[in-house]
């Protein structure tokens, strides 16, 4: 280590900028207020100030902002202390101990450097300065201890040293660095640390994270959102780290960034989605040109495995919720059964095979926009098998009957759904000129039940309480309720292979303001 004081300009307690070097030789001492040795040398520095202040500049750098006031109040120095709370000078001068005293010539070149307090060294320096200035510092050296070790400089505190190093090297990385011994297995280490969803992770080395960051045009330290439950700051860098672990490519970054912003809203309520015992999970649908640009699957097996973008984008989001948000099973994530969608659930809509308007256009965006839409779903995809219907009303009727099981058949007005219509079913609807509105209306029609059929009974103990039903009029009991509170609670997209009459339905969670509402957000950084 070679300690050299760099040129600096720091503010004093009055807000004035003080520069080093200046027109005089300089004494510069770095201190922090809670260090006993620093307090031991403060009276000596004050005495130096009184004796040599006319001939020397004296700079006392406090490593904390609060320390300036504390030490000035305690010692009334004849000079103003300087604020190095950013630790930039402390770090750049490579000190590891406070107090460290630099005696520099008029050009700022080092003459003497003293670390901690060694009485002989300080006394020798005082004598040297007395020789040069003709002044004597009023110090009773005999009452001072012979030696006092200093304290650790804040600039080498492990909690912040990496950040300072990265800043000094102009690195965009600020995350804590974790060293893995050469004999250790980094894959096992990551499992042990609880970073994983249960599957192996790609080690997030600085090199991989830098490559991942290249996929985003955002500042790596931009805070995209505060993520519940622990309100962790999701910086773009944290997204990149978790994206590396999930196995993403850099070009997926804008999608993941946007999903993070969408789920960390009061409307989406990721806190409740993770905490619920029901086992809800985000389901992400991607629309627009980005689908093709990053190679997402919207066709054969779109909801399944095998496509890197679909699989790893959803996984990266879930890892962020776990690692930055802090939602972990058994902690604040309390799902009774869990759900395979909690690993990942992200797919694209096959807009080109959709005869109606695509999801993002339905939700108010331009067709050429790239948009993510996040839904909260508890089950799915639940298969809708209908190889026989030849009419739109027959097929939509089947869909309604299948959707009736969401939550339980008696649960009406309780949730929403995401219907994934496959191409062969699309063709059946098209032949009948069946619109999305027609599908929704038909589902509501075939699921409408009189309230009396939704009352708890001997077959099923759930439903409207018998005591509540008993207080209702006969007319009220005949009123028919469809499955969904509103047609708008039936969300429809198109995906899947050209062959196969098997659509799918995701069943929702607590819908609306009491729970989670779907959120769509345009991907802006394209």
């Amino acid at each position, binding site marked *: 280590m070679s300690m050299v004081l760099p040129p600096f300009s720091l503010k004093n307690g009055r807000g004035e900028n003080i520069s080093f070097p200046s027109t005089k030789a300089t004494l510069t001492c770095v201190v922090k207020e809670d260090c006993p040795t620093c307090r031991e040398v403060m009276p000596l520095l004050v005495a130096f100030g009184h004796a040599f202040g006319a001939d020397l500049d004296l700079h006392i750098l406090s490593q904390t902002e609060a320390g300036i006031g504390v030490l000035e109040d305690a010692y009334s120095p004849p000079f103003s202390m300087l604020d190095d709370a950013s630790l930039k000078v402390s770090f750049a001068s490579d000190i590891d101990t406070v107090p460290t005293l630099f005696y520099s010539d008029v050009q700022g070149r080092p003459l003497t450097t003293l670390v901690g307090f060694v009485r002989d060294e300080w006394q020798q320096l005082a004598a040297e300065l007395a020789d040069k200035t003709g002044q004597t510092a009023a110090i009773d050296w005999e009452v001072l201890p012979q030696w006092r070790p200093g304290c650790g400089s804040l600039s080498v505190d492990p909690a912040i040293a990496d950040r300072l190093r990265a800043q000094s090297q102009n690195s965009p990385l600020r995350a*804590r*660095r974790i060293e*893995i011994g050469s004999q250790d297995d980094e894959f096992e280490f990551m499992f042990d640390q609880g970073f994983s969803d249960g599957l192996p992770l790609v080690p997030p*080395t600085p090199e991989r994270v830098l490559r991942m960051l290249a996929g985003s045009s955002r500042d790596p330290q931009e805070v995209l959102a505060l993520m519940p439950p*622990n309100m*962790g700051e999701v910086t773009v860098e944290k997204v990149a780290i978790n994206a590396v672990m999930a196995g993403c490519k850099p070009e997926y970054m804008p999608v993941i960034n946007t999903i993070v912003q969408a789920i960390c809203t009061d409307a989406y*309520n990721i*806190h*409740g989605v993770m905490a619920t015992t029901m086992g809800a999970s985000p389901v992400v649908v991607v629309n627009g040109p980005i689908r093709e640009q990053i190679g997402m699957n919207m066709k054969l097996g779109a909801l399944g495995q095998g496509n890197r973008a679909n699989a790893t984008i959803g996984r990266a989001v879930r890892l962020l919720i776990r690692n930055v948000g802090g939602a972990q099973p058994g902690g604040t994530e309390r799902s009774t059964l869990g759900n395979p969608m909690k690993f990942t659930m992200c797919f694209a809509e096959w807009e080109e095979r959709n005869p109606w308007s695509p999801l993002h256009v339905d939700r108010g965006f331009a067709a050429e926009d790239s948009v993510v839409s996040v839904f909260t779903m508890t089950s799915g995809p639940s298969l809708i098998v209908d190889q026989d219907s030849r009419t739109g009303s027959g097929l939509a009727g089947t869909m309604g009957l299948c959707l009736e099981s969401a939550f339980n058949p008696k649960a009406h007005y309780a949730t929403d759904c995401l219907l994934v219509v496959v191409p062969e079913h699309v063709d059946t609807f098209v032949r009948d000129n069946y619109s999305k509105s027609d599908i929704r209306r038909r589902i509501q029609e075939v699921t409408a039940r009189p309230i009396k059929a939704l009352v708890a009974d001997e077959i099923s103990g759930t439903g409207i309480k018998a005591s509540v039903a008993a207080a209702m009029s006969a007319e009220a009991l005949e009123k028919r309720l469809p499955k969904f509170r509103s047609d708008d609670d039936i969300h429809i997209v198109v995906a899947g292979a050209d062959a196969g009459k098997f659509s799918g339905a995701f069943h929702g969670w607590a819908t609306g303001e009491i729970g989670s509402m779907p959120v769509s957000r345009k991907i802006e950084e394209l």
Partner: protein
Amino acid sequence: MTILLDPTNERIPVARSIAPRPAAITGSVGFLDISKPRGNVLINRLETLLAQRLPQVTFNRYAKPTFTKPAPDALRRQINAENDFVIEALAD
């Protein structure tokens, strides 16, 4: 040696201290219903039983707007200001 970047929020959990246990229950006790079905049934029963044992105590009732979200700050402050104890009821 391999270097990995920390994927977490890097927060060290803050150790939370528990309020000292009082010798007697006096003053006001708040009941917070998180608004799950039948939470009121549980609280009604608790209030009946506690009122028999603690005739000197005042009971106050509160409810979260929805069980899926944390209690709003204003409600937390109100409960804190008006009570010496709070019982939160989850039910299903």
